């Protein structure tokens, strides 16, 4: 179907000169995980042409593909096939060769054999620079795992996988998303590796200040579905949580019930999505933060009315940006289809690079990969006809 696209608003692409920072020429590597394989897109210095490397793992369900920023060459891929058990693959040569984990994430064996079973590894987070080889993984159903050897062997991490209270908060499979409840958004405070966060869909946002020995809920201010009690942790459904690298005391969150910001040490999330246009609403999956400006963040709303179509509202996709920490939002749709575009993006499928101006990237459920070289003012489709895109990561290569 032919679709019209919007034009950029003249002058709208200009950003304050004060944000200009000197950066070495670097190239962006896009890591695209899909329902049927993974692709690597190598950008040129201008981010205008992209060399496609793939498919990797053709036919495998790849939920997340992440480059280790500590060495710039180790990749981990969270995969499974339609009917085989889940696993993790590691590449130490940026995808030329792959080796399967010797011990993928798996729950502890229960004495009665009725313990939980990992359906798939959903989220991968590299550990801090001070802990080379450390990775964290979140699974479906909700589980938290850690590797100390670069993703070769994985073990349950912290108390939460078997804690009766956490098991209660995770709810049953029936409480989760159609593709299973998930532990996601594993965040390590760049200033202190013992300070960690994660989110659970469902099951709320949680924080540890002791290196994962203990976690506690961090849900004050977050709304839940009408008629339910927000005091019950199970009912909270954060979709994506991001920490601002330029201001690690600030978190943004796209939740099932809106967009939120949290400025620590406060423990109360502020519902900043209330200033989104009412016709669009503030429901979505993804949340992207600016690498250098903690007042700037992007979302891509979806239709959360009635039966939750989870498509672009009105068939007119748009990114929304705030430049003032959520007080106001502006629509960014130049270059995007103006009508009859019914896709959306999943929680891991939108990201930013660290260039100036920041490049934004998102992958759609219809297999298109879009980018903006100017922080969302103008969008370009750089790949089509991929399988349903689950995750997009932008890595910076020297």
């Amino acid at each position: 179907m032919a679709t019209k696209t919007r034009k950029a608003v003249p002058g709208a692409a200009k950003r304050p000169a004060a944000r200009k920072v000197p950066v070495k020429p670097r190239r962006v590597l896009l890591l695209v995980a899909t329902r049927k394989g993974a692709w690597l897109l190598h950008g040129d210095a201008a981010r205008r042409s992209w060399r496609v490397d793939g498919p990797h793992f053709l036919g495998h369900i790849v939920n997340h593909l992440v480059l280790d920023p500590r060495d710039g060459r180790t990749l981990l891929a969270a995969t499974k096939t339609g009917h085989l058990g889940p696993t993790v693959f590691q590449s130490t040569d940026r995808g030329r060769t792959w080796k399967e984990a010797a011990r993928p994430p798996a729950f502890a064996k229960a004495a009665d054999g009725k313990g939980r079973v990992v359906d798939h590894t959903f989220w991968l987070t590299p550990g801090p620079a001070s802990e080379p080889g450390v990775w964290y993984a979140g699974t479906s159903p909700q589980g938290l795992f850690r590797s100390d050897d670069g993703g070769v062997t994985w073990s349950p991490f912290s108390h939460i996988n078997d804690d009766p209270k956490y098991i209660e908060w995770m709810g049953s499979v029936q409480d989760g998303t159609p593709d299973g409840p998930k532990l996601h958004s594993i965040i390590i405070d760049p200033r202190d590796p013992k300070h960690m966060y994660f989110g659970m869909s469902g099951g709320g946002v949680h924080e540890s200040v002791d290196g994962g020995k203990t976690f506690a809920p961090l849900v004050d201010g977050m709304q839940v579905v009408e008629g339910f009690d927000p005091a019950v942790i199970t009912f909270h459904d954060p979709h994506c949580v991001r920490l601002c690298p330029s201001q690690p005391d600030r978190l943004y969150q796209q939740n099932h019930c809106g967009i939120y910001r949290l400025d620590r040490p406060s423990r109360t999330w502020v519902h900043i999505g209330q200033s989104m246009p009412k016709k669009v609403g503030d429901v979505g999956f993804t949340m992207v933060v600016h690498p250098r400006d903690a007042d700037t963040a992007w979302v891509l709303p979806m239709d959360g009315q009635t039966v939750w179509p989870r498509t672009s509202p009105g068939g007119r996709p748009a990114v929304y940006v705030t430049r003032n920490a959520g007080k106001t939002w502006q629509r960014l749709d130049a270059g995007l289809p103006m009508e009859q575009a019914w896709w959306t993006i999943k929680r891991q499928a939108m990201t930013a690079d660290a260039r100036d101006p920041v490049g934004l990237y998102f992958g759609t459920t219809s297999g298109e990969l879009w980018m903006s070289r100017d922080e969302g003012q103008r969008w370009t489709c750089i790949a089509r006809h991929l399988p349903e895109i689950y995750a997009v990561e932008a890595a910076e290569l020297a």
Partner: protein
Amino acid sequence: MKVLIPSPLRPYTQRSWVEAEGSTLGAVLDDLDRQFPGIRFRMVNEQEALRPHVRFFVKGEALFRLSEPLQPTDELLIVQALSGG
């Protein structure tokens, strides 16, 4: 005994028929994992249950438990169900 490997698991074995030893289904799968690390976890979960859609047959009979006894002369057929798009 001879074991037929389904195509989704052949990246581990590089061939369709392999040899494995064991007096039970579980023991044969253990031997397969010794030869082809990682293959067992794709078929058996961490609670020691056979994963859905992976089926095991000997002499036309389906096996549902890791404790099922096997003979050295048996041929074990591992079948991978495929469905959906």
